[in-house]
């Protein structure tokens, strides 16, 4: 036995001590003492988790910076009740375990007032429990999962975009009317996003018409097995509940297989600027992205980003030019701005004496009547937390999206009727900021 053995135990202790010290050094910025975290007379801080890198990043990484740009615009005009809106954006790489980590960091360390526009179904579902048990407002999740729509068990969580079942139903009705009797295949992401959409399609399209349903896992690098199966099923129509990168991979795989079905794609997966760009990248410049997705059928709940005569698009383009010009102006940027607009509406409605409860109450009480960039009404009540209640059919033409037909609303229950909405869309306020 030699003398140095106790020293080794000491070395472990020293390492633990120094490591703790290193951790503690950075902790000075956590000031948890304030009574209402994240809000002062001059500022309010929200946090968000976004896929800034990773499989969902293409396109989606533009969303939060666009929201930030809209807040910058509002802040430049005096903020809301004199409060400047700050958005802390954390990268979760679309990895649920990272989401848990960064949302805890936002709430416990950054002391945010609430979470805004947290992106993704598999990601955000993992923090809904924590946010609701900690009574943190969880506004306008950037996902159409039907699972946000549960005001009684998740009072803090609110969806924003139409839920995937509503979208699936409207797409399904269109298929039933315009592709009657034709073989239909469904490619869907194997989580609540894809499954919700599939449920909506199945509610409308006769099951005999759906010849194959092919799931894929987010994170996979190939869709060759799925696309081969779809091609061999003889489907003439391919419905896709896919995020942009998988829309691109599926389309390119179909192309190499010599298979060209009519594409019908969820609005989350077909922003033409994003998908065309991806197609070009994935095919190493060989394919023309616009041509490959030309004619794809989709839907929308905001005016088309390419409709430059729409006053809302004019407003968003102006703000984009001023605060966010490094990104292209596309559907994702429009999404981020429109969602931010809704948050400003909520903050206005919550009043000067802002509390977390007041914000949640404001959405439940007033949200259903808010008018804004959306072409359909919100479904906010005390128990319904589901966001926009419908969509309008649309078609990809070149790098644009053209909407067509009536604006349709419904609710997610399978039997519920789909009806036409004629409420119209008001012009934006003169200064572009929702009035109080």
């Amino acid at each position, binding site marked *: 036995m030699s*003398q140095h053995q106790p020293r080794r*135990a000491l070395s472990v*202790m020293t390492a633990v001590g120094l490591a*703790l010290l290193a951790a503690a050094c950075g902790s000075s910025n956590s000031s948890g003492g304030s009574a209402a975290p994240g809000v002062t007379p001059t500022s309010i801080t929200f946090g968000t988790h976004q896929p800034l890198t990773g499989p969902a990043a293409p396109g989606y990484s533009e969303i939060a910076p666009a929201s930030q740009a809209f807040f910058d615009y509002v802040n430049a005009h005096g903020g809301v009740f004199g409060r400047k809106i700050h958005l802390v954006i954390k990268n979760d790489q679309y990895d649920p375990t990272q989401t848990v980590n960064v949302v*805890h960091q936002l709430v416990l360390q950054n002391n945010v007032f609430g979470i805004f526009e947290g992106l993704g179904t598999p990601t955000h579902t*993992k923090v809904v429990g924590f946010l609701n048990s900690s009574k943190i407002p969880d506004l306008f999740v950037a996902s159409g999962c039907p699972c946000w729509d549960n005001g009684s068990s998740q009072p803090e969580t609110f969806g924003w975009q139409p839920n995937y079942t509503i979208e699936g139903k409207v797409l399904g009705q269109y298929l039933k009317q315009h592709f009657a009797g034709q073989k239909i295949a469904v490619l869907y992401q194997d989580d609540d996003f894809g499954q919700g959409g599939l449920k909506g399609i199945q509610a409308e399209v006769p099951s005999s018409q759906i010849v194959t349903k092919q799931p894929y896992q987010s994170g996979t690098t190939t869709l060759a097995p799925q696309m081969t199966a779809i091609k061999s099923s003889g489907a003439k129509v391919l419905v896709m509940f896919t995020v942009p990168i998988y829309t691109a991979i599926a389309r390119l795989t179909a192309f190499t297989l010599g298979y060209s079905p009519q594409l019908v794609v969820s609005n989350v997966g077909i922003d033409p600027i994003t998908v065309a760009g991806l197609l070009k990248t994935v095919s190493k410049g060989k394919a023309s992205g616009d041509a490959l997705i030309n004619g794809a059928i989709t839907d929308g709940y905001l005016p088309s980003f390419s409709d430059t005569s729409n006053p809302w698009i004019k407003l968003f383009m102006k703000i984009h030019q001023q605060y966010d010009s490094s990104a292209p102006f596309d559907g994702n940027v429009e999404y981020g701005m429109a969602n931010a607009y809704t948050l400003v509406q909520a903050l206005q409605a919550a009043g000067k004496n802002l509390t977390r409860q007041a914000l949640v109450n404001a959405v439940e009480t007033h949200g259903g009547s808010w008018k804004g960039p959306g072409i359909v009404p919100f479904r906010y009540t005390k128990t319904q937390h589901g966001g926009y209640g419908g969509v309008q059919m649309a078609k990809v033409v070149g790098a644009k999206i053209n909407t067509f037909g009536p604006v349709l609303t419904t609710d997610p229950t399978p039997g519920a009727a789909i009806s036409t909405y004629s409420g119209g869309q008001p012009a934006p306020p003169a200064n572009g900021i929702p009035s109080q």
Partner: protein
Amino acid sequence: MTTLAQPGPGVPGPDEQPLPSTRLTLGNRLLRSTLVRSLLLVVVLAVVLALVSGALSSYRDLQLAYGAYFFAALAGLSVLVGLSGQVSLGHGALMAIGAYTTALLIGNEGWPLVPALLAAVVSSALVGIPVGAAASRLRGPYLAGATLALAVGLPALANKFPGTFGGENGLVINPPTPPSFLGSSFSLERWEAWISLAGALIVLFVLYNVVHSGVGRSWRAVRDDEIAASLCGLRVGRMQTLAFVISAGCAGLGGGLLTVVNQLAAPTAFQLSLSLSLLTGVVLGGLGSLSGAVWGAALLVLLPNWTTDLSHSLSLSTNVSDNLPFAVYGVVLVAAMLVWPTGIQGGVRAAGHGLRNRRRMRSGGQGAESQSSKPGGEER
């Protein structure tokens, strides 16, 4: 100095100290027993960490919990790589086994925490037996390749059987509830830190004793020269398998704790990148050393946050600042390996020796030789 990624003869183990002296400076005979010493170490650390966790903010407590489960996995891997001389690129997958075992048992079967975590250790160790047995026949890049296959293939099972493992969505469990006697102000995060730290301390206790036992010495002998070791009557393959199994059990506990702390087992957490970061943590912390595993765990938890904060403080365009953290992370790792080729613990130790040597020189004693010139495993 030899390369650290492929440990061979000459890689310093945890135990080299200059001047293996026969003098006993202290007459405290109790301290000479490894068991007593490790027990004392664990108890002191438990008290210190319990006090520290109470003083920290909730998020720091959570980071403590993250660090503790990384330590469990890293310590096992460090012993495997640094002591028995095998490399594993598959420890992320072994963590996944522990994580999913815990999630299934707590979530579906309603098991209590401790048995579920024990089951996580056992299941990972069981998987470690065939893998370790196969691994003991492989060397260098072939061993790395075989374990790499584990890291790539195993998490994909979650997507192959989405009914059981929840697919990409993963398995969710309820958060652990702090016992009521700790009071209502005792935060969930602090309780998670305690659970995770308890697991880490158990790993520390077990590995400390194994490393300083005959088994640990046999591992070093096998690492340094397999032929010589087998001539001495050591069964090389068996020793290497044992190292792999123990290390797999530690990884399983780390994975189980990950599930408990995050209340989630999802395949994206166990991709190849996790296995690679574990190996990075071990090498950067200091191969074969338990203190090194502490450093490695601290780095795995803190470095990503630091690099993100740094790149966002530079106010660059979003495309650059989103990706910069990964580049900075890489640069930091490269720089650290250049500055401390034996890992952070090696750097700390060298600094300690420098101080001691200077003191000894001043007092007229003979200068100690540099520790790295000593071959590994000359304990006693």
